[in-house]
């Protein structure tokens, strides 16, 4: 390895100077001459036919340059090919409070807002559905006529024989769990600047995790060739999945720009961000697990209902992930999964960090903890007894190539003092453990094709600067820095020599986007291949010029040197000049497509879950519970995450700690509160993401299993730790005060109710508390 090796070193992110000086530009920071400001009219009704819209008074207002309604962009779209069920402005009826009805572009924000008030919409109210269990029984007034009983999608999977599995079990437990709805709450509200160019092209700067999907969708909705549209991703102020599908303002700004032939910028208010949503759905999980006398999991059966809101979005993928990853963390021979995605008159849910895996993991790890106690087995030990042995294929066809979970468990058990604490702390104090995992990118693309999932180009010309072109999207997770590190490592140059051009559909080769934790594994592998190609080209040029074999040459420390003949020592610039003599300006390419054997089974829905590799996490959480008030204080969280290889420990730790933080928020304090379809807490004041004061010490431990196919052995780091936090908290609460809370968030009210119920039982009352699960 070169002396200046940058792989495995804690490297600050390359764009951090732009961020700490305030000079970096996010979408809302951009302005261009002649720019109009756009505003969107939202439905005040949860379910209503739109009889007519009168925009004439708005159009007549001085300063208004365009007014758009559903008629102006009637082409339906959606992130999934099977879910093209939404229009940028709904055409037939409004399906949730906040649904998009019309938009205005004007010379000022004040005029645009005034114009919205002048649009008259004649609504005919319809009965609306807010409860998923009621909605899926509905006989009429369905949200979408093509979706009977308001069921978007259902899947029924059976692997092995669960009946035999449960028959073998010495202990069987079935419980219902409820998880409230949570949302991404990225600090940057969505913003889009759409510029109508003089030559009839469209340039769109947008806060997106998926610039290429936006590119494609704009082409379909605007009925313009993709070659006439350019999507550029500026700095993104956090995504977490909330910017991983097409968000209405992106299309609205583009439609208005095309109508007005002017640049149009739309920035969401925070309330609009909440209504755009696409977060984690209300989930009802009926979880049944069987455990043998020896502590082996013999069968799992889960029935999952997700309240998907008004549109499809990623819904079918979410409900499939819930099943696919349910049985793939441990060695489980028999799995039954019944998953339902239900439509209701609320904002659409979608992908949120830990997509689909989180609420089911909460249920499973909680039940496993109770079963371990029934069997008299230590909760950490029961997890050890059910480990996979990689490499292997799980019962549902997922290929596991590296598996650091055993080491993750060992690390947190040792570091937390588990053996001295579990079951031994004074009443009111407790420690819990739980595990989780996640994909390193989806092995199958959303839109099936044989195009590589990602391509990276590298260019070097006479200036000897290294320009890397990647379609991958930096959203704050370290994508750009990862590329620079890989290229610097392979070419043996300083990171400062590398200039990165990223996520600009006109300049960079296609990449599917920043979702499902795919970037390091997939774009990283493509980047590695491109860098190796470039290295070979430079060395071939040097070898030809100096009559040496390429095998005798190495690139390191900004030099090309001969390994056997110290006389040859070229600076990088000299080596590039030599290579240019033979080839002219150098261009290299790398691509990545997941191997065929990683793409999963053949059953219906088998496309979701397969990944070229999986990350693993184990966590311990220590809590104190005040039995008088129900207040929960989390003292410390230790999270060990198997990321394969930490290309950049600084950013890996940041990702793990951020995941734990977000999981803890869902565990204890975050919940979207609904009243007949109206979001009651659409602000950061009322939707309580944790401040410094509510966030305990989080200690991250990196476990490196060195994946055989990951770039330098690396795999996912940004999502896999989230899901373990929630059940680890629930299990710690059980250890502290002996009540099982089956409902998220775990509030003091639920703790007190469970303690009262437990007190009644102990005094001889009826049994049957399930901690408030609905």
């Amino acid at each position, binding site marked *: 390895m070169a002396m200046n090796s940058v792989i495995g070193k804690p490297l600050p992110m390359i764009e951090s100077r732009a961020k700490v000086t305030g000079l970096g530009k996010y979408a809302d920071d951009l302005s261009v001459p002649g720019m109009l400001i756009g505003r969107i009219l939202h439905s005040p009704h949860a379910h209503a036919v739109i009889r007519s819209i009168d925009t004439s008074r708005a159009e007549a207002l001085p300063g208004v340059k365009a007014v758009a309604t559903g008629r102006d962009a009637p082409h339906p779209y959606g992130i999934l090919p099977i879910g093209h069920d939404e229009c940028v402005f709904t055409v037939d009826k409004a399906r949730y409070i906040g649904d998009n009805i019309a938009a205005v572009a004007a010379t000022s924000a004040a005029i645009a807002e005034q114009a919205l008030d002048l649009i008259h919409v004649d609504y005919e109210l319809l009965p609306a559905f807010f409860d998923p269990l009621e909605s899926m029984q509905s006989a009429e007034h369905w949200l979408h006529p093509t979706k009977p009983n308001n069921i978007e999608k259902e899947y029924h999977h059976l692997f092995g024989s669960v009946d035999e599995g449960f028959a073998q079990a010495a202990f069987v437990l079935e419980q219902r769990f409820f998880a409230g709805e949570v949302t991404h709450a990225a600090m940057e509200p969505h913003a889009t600047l759409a510029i109508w160019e003089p030559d009839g092209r469209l340039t769109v700067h947008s806060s997106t995790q998926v610039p290429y999907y936006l590119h494609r969708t704009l082409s379909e909705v605007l009925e313009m060739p993709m070659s006439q549209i350019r999507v550029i991703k500026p700095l993104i102020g956090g995504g977490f999945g909330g910017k991983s599908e097409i968000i209405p303002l992106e299309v609205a700004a583009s439609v208005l720009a095309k109508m007005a032939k002017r640049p149009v910028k739309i920035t969401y*208010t925070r309330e609009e961000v909440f209504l755009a949503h696409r977060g984690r759905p209300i989930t009802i999980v009926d979880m049944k697990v069987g455990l043998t006398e020896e502590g082996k999991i013999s069968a799992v059966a889960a029935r999952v209902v997700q309240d998907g809101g008004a549109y499809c979005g990623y819904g079918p993928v979410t409900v499939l992930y819930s099943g696919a990853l349910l049985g793939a963390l441990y060695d489980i021979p028999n799995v039954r999964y019944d998953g339902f995605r239900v439509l209701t008159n609320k904002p659409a849910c979608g992908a949120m960090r830990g997509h689909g895996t989180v609420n089911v993991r909460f249920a499973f790890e909680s039940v496993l903890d109770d079963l371990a106690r029934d069997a008299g087995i230590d909760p950490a030990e029961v997890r050890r007894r059910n480990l996979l042995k990689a490499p292997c294929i799980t019962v549902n066809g997922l290929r596991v190539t590296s598996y650091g979970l055993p080491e993750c468990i060992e690390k947190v058990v040792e570091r937390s003092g588990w053996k001295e604490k579990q079951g031994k702390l004074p009443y009111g104090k407790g420690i819990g453990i739980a595990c989780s995992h996640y994909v390193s990118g989806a092995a199958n693309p959303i839109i099936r094709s044989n195009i590589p999932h990602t391509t990276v180009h590298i260019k070097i010309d006479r200036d000897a600067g290294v320009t890397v072109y990647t379609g991958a999207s930096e959203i704050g997770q370290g994508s750009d820095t990862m590329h620079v590190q890989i290229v610097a490592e392979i070419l043996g140059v300083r990171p400062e020599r590398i200039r990165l051009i990223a996520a600009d559909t006109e300049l960079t080769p296609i990449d599917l986007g920043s979702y499902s934790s795919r970037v390091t594994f997939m774009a990283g592998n493509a980047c590695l291949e491109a860098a190796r190609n470039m290295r070979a080209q430079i060395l071939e040029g040097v070898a030809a010029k100096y009559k040496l074999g390429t095998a005798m040459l190495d690139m390191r420390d900004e030099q090309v040197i001969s390994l056997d003949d110290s006389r040859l020592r070229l600076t990088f610039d000299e080596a590039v000049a030599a290579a240019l003599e033979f080839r002219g300006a150098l261009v290299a390419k790398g691509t990545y497509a997941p191997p065929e054997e990683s793409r999963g089974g053949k059953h219906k829905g088998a496309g979701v879950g397969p990944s070229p590799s999986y990350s693993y996490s184990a966590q311990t959480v220590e809590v104190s519970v005040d039995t008088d008030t129900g207040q929960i204080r989390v003292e410390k969280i230790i999270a060990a995450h198997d990321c394969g290889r930490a290309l950049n420990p600084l950013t890996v730790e940041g990702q793990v700690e951020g995941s734990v933080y977000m999981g803890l928020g869902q565990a204890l304090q975050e919940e979207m509160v609904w009243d007949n379809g109206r979001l009651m807490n659409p602000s950061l004041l009322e939707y309580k993401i944790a*401040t410094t004061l509510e966030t305990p010490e989080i200690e991250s431990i990196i476990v490196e299993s060195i994946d055989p196919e990951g770039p330098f052995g690396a795999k996912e780091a940004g999502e896999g730790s989230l899901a373990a936090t929630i059940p680890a908290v629930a299990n710690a609460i059980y250890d502290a005060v002996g009540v099982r809370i089956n409902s998220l968030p775990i509030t003091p009210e639920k703790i007190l109710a469970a303690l009262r119920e437990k007190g009644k039982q102990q005094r001889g009352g009826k049994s049957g508390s399930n901690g408030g699960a609905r």
Partner: protein
Amino acid sequence: MTKHLIKLKVNGEPYEVAVPPNKLLLDVLREDLGFTGSKRGCDDSSCGCCAVLIDGAPMLACVALASSYQDCEITTVEGLGTLDGLHPVQSGFADGGGSQCGFCTSGFLISTKALLDRNPQPSLDEIREALSSNLCRCTGYMQIYESVKLAIERAAARKAANPAGARS
């Protein structure tokens, strides 16, 4: 609404700008003066992304009327340091991992600067307290604390190297 000419002093420079009396300082900074480093992350003064220093005290520019601050020294993130000479809080956050997506960063830098100006050696609890009105959705705050500690070390080193002329 009728516009009035107001005078502001931002990052040490004088500006004259015609604004309606109800225009918020954050909008004047971002739209009229081009200081887009201060961000709007919420509708209700709950996120801290827009924090600026007014006469050295951290204030939310999203709830401040610009015309009320004509006689004050206003410092935005752009005024903390220069590209050639980052302020220790800037270099601390750049190198310590305290800035992931970066959207909350300017607000955190402003709050940290205000803290270290009044208390150059804060305890962890004092840091947590001082940063409790800034929300970060990325980091879980651990690397923000590391970044603040780095800033403290660098500020102390700078002061030791140049005791007379150290710019806070």
